């Protein structure tokens, strides 16, 4: 063989292999980036983006840099269309998303059919994993976890704090009537029954309500001790304001995420009115960092990239879920769907290791069984973590 021929082919081979080493691996980021859900959709996506940035800076996964391709799940139809585009046109190896349960449920139908993995990092409805899909995994805690923790907080802490036996308490469960409020309330009823709690009434109302005075009057008349509410911003504000004005002061009000976790709600209601109100939701930022190592670095990275503090716990939870999954994939042999599924199934992380606190192990229906919510309370106009004890930064305050 001629020397020049040998040299040419060697040069070409080297160039090709160098090119392959620079190849990127594409993943889809499917969130509602516009429309009514845009605020928290964008917030959630930021968590994913920060995780990808961190991992790329450390060398990427399997020697490749991660590239995120955005898909806008502005409504359910769009979610399906975008999932199709990401899987067939863009050729992503997996999709991360999606904040909204409805969008997630719609889009994952496409990926399951195509045999592409779907990692849900933030939606809470049970139905997402209840369908028993092979390629869908959920990293975050669910509506069931939320209900479980609300009841647990009552039995373990709140009952004693207000000086009554759990079984003596009169509990009212009120909720907005879409799938979010209904699924949490349903699970709350199940867990309350298991714990032997007395639920005197369960009532739904439309989230788009302008008045809750008859509901407040009803609860006041029944002399309810504790109210569990699952609601968005508008109805949380209405309920808290109208209860205060009608002179209805239950011993405790426990919100299920939604409006109860948001600063604008506290500002609208008034810091003095919302003082002492409890809330169960994704891990937020006023938490014991011994339980959540890496949280402060995350907040700093968020501040550096986006110029403001994180607006909710959604970014944190998406960050943690994405980071765990991607780091695991970094140790896999390739990006084939079945390899990904096998790798993710073997993840085993204890609580107290991730920035959100909870551990990772995927069980039945590919749900992360170690995912947990945290219990929080509004104190002095700030939402602080009070439960479980390992995550709390201050104890729960009780009204006299």
């Amino acid at each position, binding site marked *: 063989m001629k020397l020049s021929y040998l040299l040419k082919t060697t040069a070409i081979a080297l160039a090709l292999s160098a090119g392959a080493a620079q190849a990127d691996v594409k993943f889809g980021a499917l969130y509602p980036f516009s429309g*009514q859900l845009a605020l928290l959709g964008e917030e959630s996506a930021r968590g994913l983006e920060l995780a990808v940035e961190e991992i790329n800076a450390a060398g990427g996964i399997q020697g490749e840099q991660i590239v995120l391709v955005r898909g806008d799940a502005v409504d359910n139809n769009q979610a399906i269309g975008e999932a199709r585009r990401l899987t067939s046109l863009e050729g992503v190896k997996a999709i991360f998303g999606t904040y909204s349960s409805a969008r997630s449920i719609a889009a994952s139908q496409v990926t399951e059919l195509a045999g592409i993995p779907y990692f849900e990092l933030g939606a809470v409805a049970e139905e997402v994993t209840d369908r028993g899909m092979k390629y869908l995994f959920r990293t975050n805690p669910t509506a069931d976890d939320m209900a479980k923790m609300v009841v647990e907080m009552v039995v373990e802490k709140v009952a004693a704090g207000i000086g009554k036996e759990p079984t003596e308490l009169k509990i009212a469960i009120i909720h907005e009537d879409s799938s979010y409020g209904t699924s949490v309330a349903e699970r709350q009823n199940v867990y309350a029954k298991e714990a032997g709690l007395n639920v005197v009434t369960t009532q*739904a*109302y439309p989230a788009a309500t*302008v008045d809750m*005075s*008859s509901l407040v*009057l009803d609860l006041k008349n029944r002399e309810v001790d504790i109210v569990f509410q699952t609601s968005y*911003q508008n109805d949380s*504000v209405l309920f808290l304001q109208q209860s205060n004005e009608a002179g209805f002061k239950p011993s405790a009000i426990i919100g299920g995420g939604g409006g109860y976790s948001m600063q604008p709600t506290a500002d*609208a209601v008034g810091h003095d009115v919302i003082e002492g109100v409890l809330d169960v939701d994704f891990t937020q930022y006023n938490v014991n960092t011994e339980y959540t190592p890496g949280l402060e670095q995350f907040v700093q990275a968020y501040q550096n990239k986006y110029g403001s503090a994180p607006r909710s716990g959604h970014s944190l939870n998406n960050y943690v879920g994405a980071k765990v999954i991607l780091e695991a994939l970094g140790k896999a042999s390739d990006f084939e769907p079945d390899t990904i599924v096998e790798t993710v199934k073997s993840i085993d992380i204890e609580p107290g290791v991730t920035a959100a606190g909870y551990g990772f192990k995927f069980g039945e229906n590919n749900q992360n069984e170690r995912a947990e919510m945290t219990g929080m309370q509004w104190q002095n106009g700030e939402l602080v973590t009070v439960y479980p004890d390992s995550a709390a930064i201050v104890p729960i305050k009780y009204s006299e």
Partner: protein
Amino acid sequence: MNTFLQVLANGIMLGSLFAIVAVGLTLIFGIVKVVNFAHGEFLMVGMYLTYVLTTWMGIHPFATVILVAPALFLLGALTQRLLIQPLMSADDDHIQIFATVGLSTALINLALLVFGADIASTPTSGLRTPVEFGPVRFLSGQLVIFVASVAIVLALQIFLSRTQTGRAIRAVAQNRAAAQLMGINVNWIYILTFGIGAACVGVASVLIAPLYPTSSGIGTYFVLTAFVVVVLGGLGSIGGAFAGAMIIGLIDSFAGFYIGSDLREVAVFSVFLVILILKPSGLFSSRLNLSHVSP
């Protein structure tokens, strides 16, 4: 008994809230004969305007009515002149409906762009002070809404029956072609009516803003009930709108307390259906007015 009276008071307050929002709608619906689906968004615009003016200028929310009512009047007049009037000669009446739906969507998304998705709260300025009338308790702001709704209804009635312009408006509502033959400039009447209807919503928004959280969706919370109230009372009947609003408010309050929160809307719409079946033109309308339908 005390509880019953409180539920009654809540119902009356809720009714006057619906009345003050619906009275502008019945004017537009009854006279211009346009289904204004952007009516709720007019309320939203007014509420955001009140919020901005109150927080920037630090004045009492009620003082902003000097700016908000004329601004809303302008919005209504422009909507009629630029959006509805060109479509009035369209073959299909439904085109105007689509136009107002489009306006509604545009306004909602504009609000989302400018103010974001979080709620905005107009400072309460003492309007959330509970007031006790014997066994019954409500807010000072609610009392103002009640008084204002009665005042607006009376003022509009006087305007429509005693003034020349008011009579012209009623003439156009009764028979557009005949009114035109009588020398009334129908297009100007429509613009004026739309403007007045929107201005009424402007006043409503100023009164409501200190009591309810403002968001881009706030209009959608009110609009369906506003339409129910207007149809129940009879198209174009101001007094009917007031009565309809009171009925809906009372049913909502009583059903919410005695039956359950989940079934409030069922009760309201069931009564609505029954009344319409028995009296299709609404409670206070004498006959079905079809003069706007072209031959």
